[in-house]
């Protein structure tokens, strides 16, 4: 008995310690940043976190007289953890804004909390169209559904790629993108020979690629989540698809800036459509890339990172507009219709859907100064989520 209650006492003391750390001053604005920092999606967490910190390093930690404090928590990519952490950040730590959410289910799980607590949540990574409809308090700075896929379809149809096989990872965003690409491609007069879906977990593309090869298309359109791209690229070359003259077109997730260099020359010439390239030529982007490289051991920022950066930019701008008022409903109102120039280019938050409207670039993988980059060659301005007109 004695030793058990002692253990309980220690546990209790630990809990009290956590509780005490929740107290905060009124002139601080707390931003709860919930990301997968461990597990299979840890690279997402690392990149978003780097983007958030880069923004603070470049823009200071005070806005409208308030000191900004970011509290980072790891949800390991597990939805019930995300939900618990979000709720704790709100009720215990007094977070005024939530941020992060690596995957769609993780974002969806916090929707009920947002409504009850009236706290805005800025999505830095999850992309499924449906998310922003699930709560009035969701605002997105990553990408909306098949935003990046639709311009690829238009471009392909215009450039003589008429017979295409699609290959996507079999989960929410993959299916969104498959639909977005297919609809646009058919409208532009293309033909989809086959739609292949590969499992999200532990993908082995070999059998699927063999099937693709046998149908002899002009090109194969691919979406796989960031991180899986390098495995895909390797197998694409190994299976001889490139030698068979099949062109590879994809969303930018496949040639993720973070991993592109590791893919080697196999990636050269791949055409992708996406909202961000670390090679984007603008002063905003140069400063951003330099800051992320400096603070993170020369890591190259990717599209996840810029999502985190812009989430902070949006939070700062909203606080400036409300003059430091931290009322959640007012903050969301302030965020609606906000426009600014991000490292990726000009972006706007659609006042109606609270979703992002941005330019989508067509890029080709090329060598720049000995490193592989997605080099932008065409721009589709102000693209919205094709799933929510």
């Amino acid at each position, binding site marked *: *008995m004695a030793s058990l209650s002692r253990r309980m006492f220690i546990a209790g003391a630990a809990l009290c310690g*956590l509780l005490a750390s929740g107290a905060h001053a009124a002139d601080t604005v707390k931003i709860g940043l919930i990301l997968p920092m461990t597990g299979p999606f840890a690279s997402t967490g690392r990149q978003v976190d780097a983007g958030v910190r880069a923004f603070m390093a470049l823009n200071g930690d005070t806005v409208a007289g308030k000191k900004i404090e970011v509290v980072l928590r790891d949800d390991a990519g597990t939805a019930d953890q995300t939900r*618990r952490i979000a709720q704790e950040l709100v009720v215990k730590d007094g977070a005024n804004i939530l941020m992060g959410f690596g995957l769609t289910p993780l974002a969806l799980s916090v929707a009920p909390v947002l409504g009850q607590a009236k706290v805005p949540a800025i999505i830095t990574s999850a992309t499924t169209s449906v998310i922003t409809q699930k709560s009035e308090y969701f605002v997105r700075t990553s990408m909306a559904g098949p935003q990046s896929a639709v311009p690829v379809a238009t471009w392909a149809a215009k450039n003589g790629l008429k017979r295409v096989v699609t290959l996507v990872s079999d989960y929410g965003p993959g299916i969104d993108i498959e639909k977005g690409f297919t609809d646009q491609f058919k409208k532009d007069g293309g033909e989809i020979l086959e739609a292949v879906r590969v499992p999200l977990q532990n993908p082995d593309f070999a059998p699927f690629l063999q099937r693709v090869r046998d149908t002899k298309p002009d090109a194969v359109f691919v979406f796989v989540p960031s991180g899986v791209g390098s495995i895909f690229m390797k197998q694409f070359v190994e299976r001889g698809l490139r030698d068979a003259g099949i062109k590879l077109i994809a969303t930018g997730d496949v040639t993720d800036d973070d991993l592109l260099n590791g893919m080697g020359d196999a990636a050269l010439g791949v055409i992708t459509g996406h909202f961000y390239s670390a090679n984007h030529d603008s002063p905003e982007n140069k400063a951003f890339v330099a800051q992320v490289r400096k603070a993170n051991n020369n890591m190259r920022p990717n599209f996840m990172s810029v999502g985190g950066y812009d989430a902070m930019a949006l939070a700062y701008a909203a606080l400036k507009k409300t003059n430091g008022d931290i009322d959640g409903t007012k903050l969301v109102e302030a965020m609606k219709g906000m426009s600014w120039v991000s490292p990726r280019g000009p972006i706007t938050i659609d006042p109606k859907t609270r979703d992002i409207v941005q330019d989508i670039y067509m890029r080709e993988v090329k060598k720049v100064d000995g490193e592989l980059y997605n080099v932008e060659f065409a721009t589709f301005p102000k693209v919205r989520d094709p799933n929510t007109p």
Partner: protein
Amino acid sequence: MSAPHSQIAAAFLRRKAAWTPLEAGLWCLALAAAFLFPSQQLLLSEIAILALFALSLDLIVGYAGILSLGHAAFFGVGAYTAGLFSLHVSAEPLTGLAVSAVVAGLLGLATSFLVLRGSDLTRLMTTFGVSMLLAEGANQAAWLTGGADGLSGILLEPIAGTFEFDLWGRTGYLYCLAVLFILLLVARRIVHSPFGLSLKAIKRNSRRAAMLGIAPNRRIVIIYTISALYAGMAGALLTQTTSFVSPDVLAFHRSADVLLVLVLGGVGYLYGGIVGAVIFTLLRAWLSVVTPQYWMFWIGLILVALVVIGRDRLHPARAIALVRSRLPGRAGEKAVPLSEDSR
């Protein structure tokens, strides 16, 4: 001759089933926690749910000797059932809990025949296989389960029409705690009954148990079903307190975590799951706040250290038992009924 023997046996079982002050204290603390730590209710709910899940695993691992690497199958089915039930039938939590228990129990009954065959290794593989099948099924059946995006929009009515689920999570915690307490009482009753004792006999040596007239298969089917029922309720509690379900409830890491929790707390005395869940969840919560990127390293290190040092030396109940057994009088007294039992 048989009358005194059955009396001795009954007295032995009663003595084993008696409440200890340690147990009572634990429950008082658990109840007090609802009021002492108002900002930690969500963490406490998580502990209660994990404890219930581990308790369900203890019933088959600790009492029937069936190792399972796929216990999340029942947890997940319970979680999905609770979610679907509240979305499509009724948002009343208690009915949802009961329905989830029944569905998970039925699945347990159906799959229990698989674990009757083969040895430990075969069982590990079959249980693992069943949970993988269900996980992929939940992922594919998007029309029912929402696929990888999960089920959202679950709203629950107040429990019994009066206690509403609040943002702070106290209702949720008390609800989980009450369910855990009631199910633990039932589990105590089960394991301290002649049925429970016969399970232990099967665990030690199932062939010998069969020769003594204990039918192992039937008993394993029963306890496996009960265990599945418990796990289903734990899953239902998770859905009801978080109002969200994703395929993650069926993921392998859940089966692995719960086995870890059980091993951490100790197998085969019902409270192992609870102790393990408290330690595991607090460690994880604390470390992941201190170091969001590297907490898994520390938790791994601590777990290895715990196993190497030996849990027996750290565990209060075991430590007390160890001290007691060294006191000659009490040790002798304890040995009497056992020696008479084994004629």
